[in-house]
């Protein structure tokens, strides 16, 4: 059923040599005598976004001690993608050595704010479609990072949903209409839904009110697919709707499952941060971002919440349980 790992292998082979070089260099990544400033930009509501925590842990493992070798200037926009350009410009003005971004609006804003300061991104579902790099193997410019494979995983997430909820007739895909990756993901969702004989209802929204209106249309018997980009608190709305109205929902990352989501299929936010730390370390040691191929998230997890399945009245098929990487009781 689920074979996203094959996707990952394809990606990994494209970037294999470059990744090896980074890992080999990791042991002596820390350059003595210089304290680097890392500018962080995302749309979280607090400084502890899991990708940032992963970055810090990854850098620590590579010998960069916070406070001694690196300091972090963390900017978060509380779910407001429109605040990104201002914050990105402020970080550039502050003279950071590298910008670490999570999600597409943050990455596009960082790219627009500087052509000189390296940008390392995470949580970007399709970096080429999003316009943040020209090519994955040769990103060019000052931007590289870790792709979360959103568009490639759409079909697999629908398969997970259909397996957990065989009677599903209609799946709602609510996404930020200004997000170019969302449009590609939507088309891939439409194609996959046709193959699986499921109704697929994409709705593009431009603000929080739009999210609420869209969710009001969702009825018992429907299901929800959360987007990778979480502008306007779309995923939070989907989680609340799922639990309040007993509507099964599949999310892009396991964090949501820890807080009541039914299932997720995709790379962990924290793990993407850890992975991106290797790129940040390489950049700090002097490698130009244009020479660092974009990496695919190196681990795709299927995570299930059995308690939520029980609340939704869903029986968890044995074959899904056997394939799950993490199960929350």
């Amino acid at each position, binding site marked *: 059923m689920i074979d996203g790992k094959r996707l990952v292998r394809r990606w990994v082979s494209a970037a294999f040599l470059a990744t090896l070089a980074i890992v080999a260099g990791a042991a002596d990544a820390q350059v003595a005598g210089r304290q680097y400033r890392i500018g962080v930009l*995302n749309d*979280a*509501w*607090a*400084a*502890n*976004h*899991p990708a940032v*925590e992963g970055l810090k842990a990854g850098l620590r493992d590579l010998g960069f001690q916070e406070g001694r070798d690196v300091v972090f200037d963390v900017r*978060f926009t509380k779910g407001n993608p429109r605040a990104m350009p201002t914050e990105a410009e402020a970080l550039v003005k502050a003279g950071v050595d590298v910008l670490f971004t999570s999600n597409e609006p943050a990455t596009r804003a960082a790219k627009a704010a500087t052509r000189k300061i390296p940008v390392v991104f995470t949580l970007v579902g399709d970096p080429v479609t999003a316009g943040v790099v020209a090519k994955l193997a040769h990103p060019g410019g000052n931007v590289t990072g870790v792709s979360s494979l959103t568009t490639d995983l759409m079909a697999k997430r629908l398969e997970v949903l259909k397996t957990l909820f065989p009677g599903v007739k209609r799946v709602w895909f609510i996404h930020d209409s200004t997000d170019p990756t969302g449009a590609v993901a939507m088309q891939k969702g439409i194609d996959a839904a046709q193959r699986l004989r499921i109704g697929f209802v994409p709705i593009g929204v431009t603000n929080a009110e739009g999210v609420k209106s869209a969710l009001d249309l969702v009825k018992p018997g429907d299901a929800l697919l959360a987007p990778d980009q*979480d502008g306007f608190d779309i*995923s*939070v709305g989907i*989680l*609340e709707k799922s*639990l309040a109205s007993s509507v099964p929902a599949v999310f892009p990352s396991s*964090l*949501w499952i*820890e*807080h*009541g989501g039914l299932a997720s299929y995709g790379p962990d*936010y924290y793990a993407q941060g850890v992975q991106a730390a290797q790129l940040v370390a390489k950049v700090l040691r002097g490698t130009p971002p244009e020479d660092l191929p974009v990496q695919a998230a190196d681990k795709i997890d299927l995570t299930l919440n059995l308690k939520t399945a029980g609340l939704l009245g869903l029986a968890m098929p044995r074959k899904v349980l056997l394939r799950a990487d993490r199960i929350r009781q």
Partner: protein
Amino acid sequence: MKRRTFLAESESAVPHRRGTTAVTHRTALRVRFALPALVAAFIAAAMASSVEAQAPIRIGASLSTTGNYAALGQNQLRGYQLCFKHANEKGGVLGRKLELVFEDDQSQEPVAVRIYEKLITQDKVSGILGPYSSQLTEVAADVSEKYRMPMVTPNASVPSIFKKGRKYVFMVTSPAEVYLEGLIDIAAKRGLKTVAVLSEDTLFPKSTAQGTVELAKKRGLQVVLAESYPKGTTDFRPLLRKVAAANPDVVAAATYFDDAVAITRALKELDVNPKMFGVTVGGDLPKFHEVLGRDADFVYGGSQWLPELVTLRAGGLIPIARQYPGAAEFVEAHRKEFPGADLSYHSAAGYGACQIYLEAIKRAGSMDGAKIRDAILKIDSPSAYGGFKVDEGGFQTAHKMVTFQWQEAKKVIVWPEELAADKPLFPTPPWNKR
């Protein structure tokens, strides 16, 4: 013992109001027209029945509004009062409004026992809620057991109360043993090796100290000193000289408010400089920082609940308010109804315990003690105070603690990590470098 009543929809919510009388719907029936005797009798009987159905359900509680527990007892009382208010605004339970009847136990066990006996046998209340503190709950639980009247207890965290085979007392808080779990976890993760555990020599602090010693040992920390002191101790210098001699990385103190303040002052006076210092009850009160000023900074505390949880997001992304249903409404109402009054976890515990009790009454469909008990045992859902599920003995198994640290006069949640928007300021700098 002054008796007070509180019927929220008809009175201002002031805890100290005395002699207020609950407004019932026992309005005198006035028949203005002459009617045949038979018809009049029929109407009178029907109205009497209707009036009876509308009489409020009276719930009794002993609460400390004077004495040692006065400050926190009144916090708990405000939680009860808001819960009754909100329930009455939604129509009450079993089709009837609710009336809270409470009396001041002066923070004394014998008085609390007398109050519950009186509430049940003379005032004929239909149900009861718990008093403040483990100490008073321990004795009040014998009364609830005697009359088979379920008692949900907001702020009793000593597990032994719920391990004596009692069937009618139910715990809402996390147990005393885990109050300092966050402190120990943070210490272990940062490689600290030694801990000194201090505690007042009474029921709750001793349980906390015992639990902290066990947690420390499990995490590989060496307990270099474990000592208790008599209630009412004001001079902690002799004890802290022993602490200084043991030179622990962590000082964990199971306290109430006065000793938490006094120990912090003595640490400074003797220039004792552990890398982490944590207290329990009292450390979470705004007054702790008001009294100590900057000396309160860097001090850790365990808390059952904080108002910040209403707006907090796990990992900076996912709101956790769903785990505290009704908490936002409670916090907003508290600020409106009791402007300037302390809002602590003790207040939220009162509100949450009352929510649980009323939910059980609804599920039981009556005020029958056995039926309410069965309903409580089946509840597995959170209140405004957090997770709730109890075992057969009424021991709490679902509620979770948080750990905060005072940072520049603010309580910052630093544990568990998924809820921690900020890192602990670690290590605590020596007194001469603050």
